[in-house]
């Protein structure tokens, strides 16, 4: 009996399965985000201190959560590539990097837009902001490193090494910047400190964004698998033409 990960090592099986799963994930993500947006804009109270700007939080927190989760996913995929040589692991890591970078950027952007009215400045060199910014740089490093290699499989493995180095260094960065005094509020963990009227829209949005990520990730992975197939077919076609060309005319 094969496990699911083993079965997915076959790209054809992955394409079959993902084609069936993708519409559901995308559909549920869209429904949840629409519902979440309705809740956060029309069906949740304005904060007694922050006023209407509190609604930025419903986008900001899911993005920030995803910026970290996606890095975790890249790290697991990189481990899967280097240790188990799983053929889909690299596809997953490659597809996730730009999406993760985008969510990280959105978290920084929405936080900065919220910071202007609340803190009076778009940017402060606060612990949380700085560590997220460095996370963003790490994403850029992963994308740039992969792009710098002609040989795709070498580039994939080297990027995986960097992703794993990044995992060990991320907590250090986080703790090191925590030494500075911080302005950003600590995480509430969706618990008692958030009123239910705001917690519920936030949870819906977080779940919706997570599914949105998985939908985009699956789509990007499918595109990558197809791109590799096209590349393999082209190489074959060129090889075949060369063979024909070198055959002596009869």
């Amino acid at each position, binding site marked *: 009996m094969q496990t699911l990960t083993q079965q997915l090592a076959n790209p054809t099986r992955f394409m079959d399965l993902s084609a069936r799963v993708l519409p559901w994930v995308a559909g549920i993500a869209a429904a949840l985000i629409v519902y979440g947006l309705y809740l956060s804009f029309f069906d949740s109270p304005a904060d007694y201190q922050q006023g209407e700007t509190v609604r930025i939080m419903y986008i900001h927190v899911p993005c920030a959560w995803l910026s970290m989760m996606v890095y975790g996913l890249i790290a697991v995929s990189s481990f899967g590539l*280097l240790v188990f040589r799983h053929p889909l692991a690299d596809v997953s890591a490659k597809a996730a990097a730009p999406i993760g970078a985008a969510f990280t950027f959105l978290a920084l952007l929405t936080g900065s837009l919220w910071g202007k009215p609340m803190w009076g400045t778009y940017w402060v060199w606060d612990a949380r902001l700085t560590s997220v910014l*460095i996370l963003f*740089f*790490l994403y*850029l*490093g992963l994308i*740039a*490193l992969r792009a*710098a*290699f*002609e*040989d795709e499989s*070498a580039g994939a*493995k*080297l990027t995986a*090494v*960097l992703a*794993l*180095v*990044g995992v*060990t*260094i991320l907590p*250090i*960065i986080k703790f*090191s*910047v925590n*030494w*500075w005094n911080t302005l950003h509020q600590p995480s509430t963990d969706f618990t008692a400190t958030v009123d239910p009227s705001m917690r519920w829209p936030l949870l819906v949005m977080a779940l919706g964004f997570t599914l949105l990520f998985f939908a985009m990730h699956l789509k990007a992975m499918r595109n990558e698998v197809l791109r590799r197939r096209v590349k393999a077919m082209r190489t074959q076609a060129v090889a075949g033409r060369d063979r024909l060309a070198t055959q002596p005319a009869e």
Partner: protein
Amino acid sequence: MNSFWALVRRDLRLAVREGGAIGTALGFFLIVVSLMPLGLGPDLNLLARIAAGILWIALLLAALLSLNRIFEADYEDGTLDVLATGTLPLELVATAKSLAHWLTTGIPLALLAPVLGILLNLDLASYPILVGTTLVGTPAVSFLGAIGAALTVKARRGGLLLALVVLPLYVPTLIFGISAVSAAAGPAGMGAAFLILAAISLAAVVLGPIAAAAALRIQLQ
């Protein structure tokens, strides 16, 4: 272990006899530090306040410029292939080369830093602390840098890429290097930040060569 020290000695000898490498890094360090007052204005109080930060950042940049030399020359002339097939594990090869980089670049830069402090009106009392933190922090610079150098050995546009890959890894070193200097003036003393800086260096000495060797193996196949 003999071949390990032989490799270190060879790299040191190369650095000395080839010349230029150490001098270039030091010259770059000097120029970056002396550009700062030109950009910021010659306000001595301001310079004294930010001197430690400027020295640390300039040191990182100067070290960054010399990082690609750790593996590049040996990769180009095939020495690295010979080393990879030799008896010495690639991890120890990476350790030896990072160690040689620290001895030829890290230590000279750390020793030059307080001299350049004069240009920035650095408080005289901070001198021993500055030398201490740079000496303790530069192993992290060399050993973490070796990861980046190994990752980009075969890359196109290696130099710029190296900066993008390595500089985020330097953040903890930079933060604790500077906070040790500034904490020394405060009531708490520099103890905690200095010890964490040392811990980062030690962790880098262990982890750097493993990651660098993994990266080299992928490219030497």
